């Protein structure tokens, strides 16, 4: 990729955009809706994207993210609302009059044209001078490192190369927004990871606004400046990747992005200074924390930034990696919650192990990172009694809860696949002898 950087800095025009002051309301969707028959694909969505931003629309299939992208591209007309690009209303413009370009999931390279002609298509249509077309296409070919493949037809190049040609074909027109419709979905894992890095570099280099549509939370998290998580045609939450992961507002966001545990309980009195809690729970010092009564559990502590009142029912989301698992009961500390349970399932994943711990009606999933050489330890096995603990700050109270979202939570293998096969894994996994030394990550 070093080559790309060199090629780009020597190029003119594109780079200048970066030095422009970012316009905070560069791309605006204003109360946009789109129906297909009775189905609301997009339901009164309002959204603002900043100039130069890498913005992702993330959601499961049918959440309306692609429809929103197609509305911006001009392939769909919204039923209500309008789309503004750089202050100009583009709602009624046909696709060919919009300064946006799309990278399609299928790449949609023209099969009868060579790589060179594919990239030149937009410039030729715009009737740019021949000299300029030649220079621009050559520059793009350098950017995607395919100078020597210029005369191959799309069916003679690999998937990753097709992807790069699609990127070049769009970028050569210097669009104000580059639309990416699940551009990596058709690639295998290794290639996907490489293209992720390339996309990120290209975004840094050309500095134009990217609108990225994906159902893959990993892609969205690693690339985006901001993400809008969508569900059933509405934006469920909008924020930076960290905000969305760490502070999910709804059960859907919590469960769709990463994995999580849900608990439901009733808010009890806030913890005043010096109020001593019985047994193993700590001494509270701050009224930002509330006590939480959860069935089958000892009273827990929870950070209550939302000032939820006493007696109200709340749902709590705790990420598996925020939980600690241990054989011995941890020392009580400030704001530390501790519960006891029995290990019901274990999967060894190399860099980490995933446990499912049964306590009452709850099955809590816990991830343990292997920061030390595993073979020297005696790993926790299936059926052991363990203690699960977490800091009160790591539990997050949800504003919205839907029982359906529990289906998004990762289940133990035996409930997903074949019982016999996964049982074997479970028996084998915790046994230290079965772990190859190299994989243990010393």
């Amino acid at each position: 990729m070093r080559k790309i950087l060199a090629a780009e800095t020597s190029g003119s025009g594109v780079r200048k955009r970066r030095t422009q002051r970012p316009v905070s309301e560069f791309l605006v969707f204003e109360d946009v809706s789109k129906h297909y028959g009775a189905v609301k694909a997009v339901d009164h969505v309002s959204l603002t994207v900043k100039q130069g931003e890498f913005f992702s629309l993330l959601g499961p299939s049918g959440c309306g993210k692609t429809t929103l992208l197609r509305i911006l591209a001009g392939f769909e007309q919204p039923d209500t609302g309008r789309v503004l690009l750089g202050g100009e209303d583009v709602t009624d413009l046909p696709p060919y009059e919009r300064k946006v370009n799309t990278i399609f999931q299928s790449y949609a390279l023209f099969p009868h044209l060579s790589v060179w002609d594919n990239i030149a298509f937009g410039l030729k249509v715009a009737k740019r001078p021949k000299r300029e077309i030649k220079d621009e296409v050559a520059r793009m070919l350098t950017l995607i490192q395919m100078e020597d493949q210029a005369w191959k037809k799309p069916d003679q190049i690999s998937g990753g190369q097709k992807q790069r040609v699609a990127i070049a074909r769009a970028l050569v027109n210097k669009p104000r927004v580059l639309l990416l419709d699940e551009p990596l979905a058709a690639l295998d894992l290794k290639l996907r990871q490489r293209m992720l890095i390339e996309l990120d570099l290209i975004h840094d280099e050309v500095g134009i606004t990217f609108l990225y549509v994906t159902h893959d939370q990993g892609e969205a998290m690693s690339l985006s400046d901001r993400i809008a998580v969508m569900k059933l045609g509405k934006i469920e939450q909008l924020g930076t990747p960290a905000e969305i992961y760490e502070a999910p507002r709804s059960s859907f966001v919590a469960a769709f992005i990463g994995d999580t545990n849900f608990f439901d309980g009733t808010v009890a009195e806030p913890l005043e200074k010096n109020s001593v809690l019985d047994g193993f729970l700590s001494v509270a010092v701050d009224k930002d924390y509330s006590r939480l009564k959860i069935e089958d559990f000892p009273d827990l502590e929870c950070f209550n930034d939302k000032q939820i009142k006493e007696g109200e029912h709340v749902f709590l989301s705790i990420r598996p990696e925020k939980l600690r698992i241990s054989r011995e009961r941890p020392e009580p500390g400030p704001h530390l919650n501790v519960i006891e349970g029995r290990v019901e399932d274990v999967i060894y994943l190399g860099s980490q192990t995933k446990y499912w711990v049964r306590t009452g009606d709850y099955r809590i999933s816990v991830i343990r990172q292997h920061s030390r050489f595993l073979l020297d330890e005696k790993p926790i096995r299936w059926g052991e009694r363990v203690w699960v603990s977490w800091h009160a700050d790591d539990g997050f109270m949800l504003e919205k809860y839907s029982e359906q979202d529990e289906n998004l939570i990762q289940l133990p293998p035996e409930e997903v696949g074949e019982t016999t096969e996964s049982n074997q894994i479970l028996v084998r996994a915790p046994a230290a002898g079965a772990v190859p030394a190299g994989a243990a990550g010393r």
Partner: protein
Amino acid sequence: MKAERRRKLSEWLVTLPSFLWLLLLFLVPTALVFAIMFKPATPYGGIGEGWTLATLRTLGNPNYPAIVARTLWLSVAATALCILLATPMGYYMARVSPARRRLVLLLVILPFWTSFLVRIFAWKVLLHPEGMLKHGLVLLGLIAPETSLLYNAYAVLLVMVYTELPFAILPIYAASEKFDFRLIEAAKDLGATSFLAFRKIFLPGIRVGLLTAFLMVFIPSLGSYVIPDIVGGPTSEMIGNKIAQRTFVDRNLPHAAGLSALLTVAVLIPMVAITALRRKESPKDALREEGV
């Protein structure tokens, strides 16, 4: 080596039936036609002994070039009109809902359920000087009462287009159905208007269908003789009519063979030329043309 030989042998065995078929039913008859051309005719319609160039000399008859020219222009015009009508039709059929598509497809092949001759006679009734169409057009003032809709080259062209149209629609529809219409969106996204996307992306995308349609319409058109015989007049004779006349009326098989050979050569020359041009135009040359 042994495996290689075996593979070769099985390849031969598989292609043998079609080779024999081609040889016995196409190549040998064509060769016979060319051979009969050089035989003398007998007064009772048979083929005489010995060899002669008499037939070849009659092909120089000044009537023939006009007939060959007319045959060519009628066939080219019919082919062009068919493809011009069939392309939007194929595009439409590939785009409509499957239910509607089935209906349209049925309508396209429906005429085949009626005899070819009956359909041409139906056109004769339609275009008849006392027919409804004529009266209607005269009433509307579009044509003069003395104009004849029948027995001219345009009537022949009209009925040829009517007859051949399904043979153009079907291959173009088949190609359009396989066409990835997301490419049209991609072209529009890159700034092409609908028309430009159609011309630059859709037409090259279905070029195999277009080529098939061309062959399916053009070649039968060249040999058509029933249509000009029924709806055409003396001024719209095609080479097919002459061949039929030599065979059935004059009972002069060598003459008929000579005209057939002429037609075959007329078809073969452009086809061989196209193939040769294609072979010459290797991908590398095409690239050099771009000037990079």
